[in-house]
């Protein structure tokens, strides 16, 4: 299933995802946070997800409501978050972008994402974070896009993972 959107609208949606990706890659926390809604949810499940699964039923790597996401960003901004001091060097590739649903200024998209990370804080290892991302985007009153939900299903979810302290 994919939703019919105009070419212009599709380009606008993709541009938003690329901006979000670049701000996350470059650890521009305040600018990234400005893209999200007041009810943003950010979910990185710790295992394969069954359709309709309740994120609250088990333990996730990340299961942030807006308040906890704000704490996460505040912590990164202290400059004392050792797990991100210095910040990881990051580059992510987004592909396979599909618009799954579009109704009343709200859009559901999915994409495939691979984040390349060098964990500069200690081990300086190259780490790969491949996964499938689902976004819920919504138009604000001024018509611009905001992100209301981001779910990252890592293909490595459920296996032991190293520190995941940057914005996935």
């Amino acid at each position, binding site marked *: 299933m994919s939703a019919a959107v105009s070419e212009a609208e599709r380009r606008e949606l993709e541009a938003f995802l690329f901006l979000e990706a670049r701000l996350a890659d470059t650890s521009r926390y305040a600018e990234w946070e400005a893209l999200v809604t007041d009810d943003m949810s950010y979910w*990185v499940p*710790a*295992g394969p997800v069954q359709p309709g699964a309740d994120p*609250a*039923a*088990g*333990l*996730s*790597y*990340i*299961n942030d409501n807006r308040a*906890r996401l704000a*704490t*996460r960003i*505040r*912590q*990164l*901004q*202290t*400059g*004392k*978050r*050792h*797990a991100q*001091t210095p910040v990881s060097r990051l580059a992510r590739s987004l592909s396979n972008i599909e618009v799954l649903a579009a109704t009343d200024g709200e859009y559901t998209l999915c994409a495939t994402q691979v984040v390349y990370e060098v964990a500069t*804080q*200690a*081990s300086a*290892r190259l780490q790969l974070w491949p996964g499938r991302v689902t976004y819920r985007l919504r138009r604000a009153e001024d018509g611009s896009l905001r992100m209301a939900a981001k779910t990252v299903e890592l293909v490595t979810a*459920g*296996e*032991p*993972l*190293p*520190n*995941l*302290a940057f914005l996935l």
Partner: protein
Amino acid sequence: MTNYGDLVGGDRVHASLYADESVFADELDRIFTRGWVFVGHDSEVAEAGQWVTRRIGREPVIMTRDRDGSVHVLANRCSHRGTALCWEHRGRATSFQCNYHAWTFGLDGSLRAVPYPAGFEKDRVSLGLDRPAQVDSYRGFVFANLDGSAGPLAAHLGRGGVDMIDRLCDLSPTGTIHLAPNWIGHQVHSNWKMWPESDNDGYHLNWVHASMVSSAPDTYYQETVLGGETGNQSLAVDWGDGHVELDFRPSYRRELAWLGVTRERVASYCDALVAARGAEAANRSLWDGPPHGLIFPNLFLGELNLAIIEPTSASTMVHWHTAVQLDGVDEAFNRRILRQSEAAMGPAAFIVPDDAATAERMQLAVDGVQPGWASAADPRGWIDMSRGLGRERTEPDGRKAALISDETTNRGFWRQYRTVMSR
């Protein structure tokens, strides 16, 4: 042969113990083969046929529940040609069938069936799965001793292990707990012993966790571990036998501080606990909360989290954790525990990733240290662990205790290490 008495002093240890491969091999033998090791909680295999996979040191095992209700711990290795019988983290089976030549084992590990039996002359009884010589449990916590030489579990747990497990389970109105539906593995490029240390180090909080403290300032860590050197009454405790604890109880200024709520918010839980245990005992538990300590060598009771410290090589390990769920409470209460756990534990949480970065930095610095440097004419590679040694006191109940920031917990771990590594 390494003489561990030369590498572990009462107030210092030699850094080669975190890096040397032959030390790691000795640990797998003397700690993880000859000693008791935590395997899992029996609620993980509540029903017959449920199984989970674990490691005892590097030995892969299956913990499963038999039809008669007993819990077995079995080597996850076919006795024919050595194939793993289970390759996922958990599942359910009526028997274990190897996919290579289809030998079939019962839930008790006995060999039940072999295809083409005519060519098979050995006694099947001799070909059951390997299993630890001793498996025992206390309040659902299942431990195993691979070689059978460790003596009874009760002697291993001692007062400290029993006291900490009791305080955790007694928070439940039924006196029993179960675990969250999944464990999360945190992979760290550090020696495993840095985790019994840092999980129970009351000295590092103000620095390693400064970012958490300033961005989430309303946690109970404020009253229990922060402030100046003498600013709170929490204790670093050595129970003996390698079991150690950061005892927050003297610092709590209100009941339920450990849960971050008032009594009104969890009234039905408190009522159930009072009904089950009487007002005095229940109120004591509501103030005291769960323990924060280590059961030697691999089980961390982190308030309402359990963590297993799994060594994978001299310089790598996995810190596995899950959340404790209380029986006899409503779902909202247990979900509060899950959300607390997500904030504290695992690769993306607010606390443990900073310990992981620190442990990896420590590993970077110890990786090349050689055991021979300890006793060279110009000794190198010793690291200090003397803090608070002079002000340790023995409590009336026999525990050694000092200020929360003193290294009493780390010395307690290492004293047991020296004892068992010297056997």
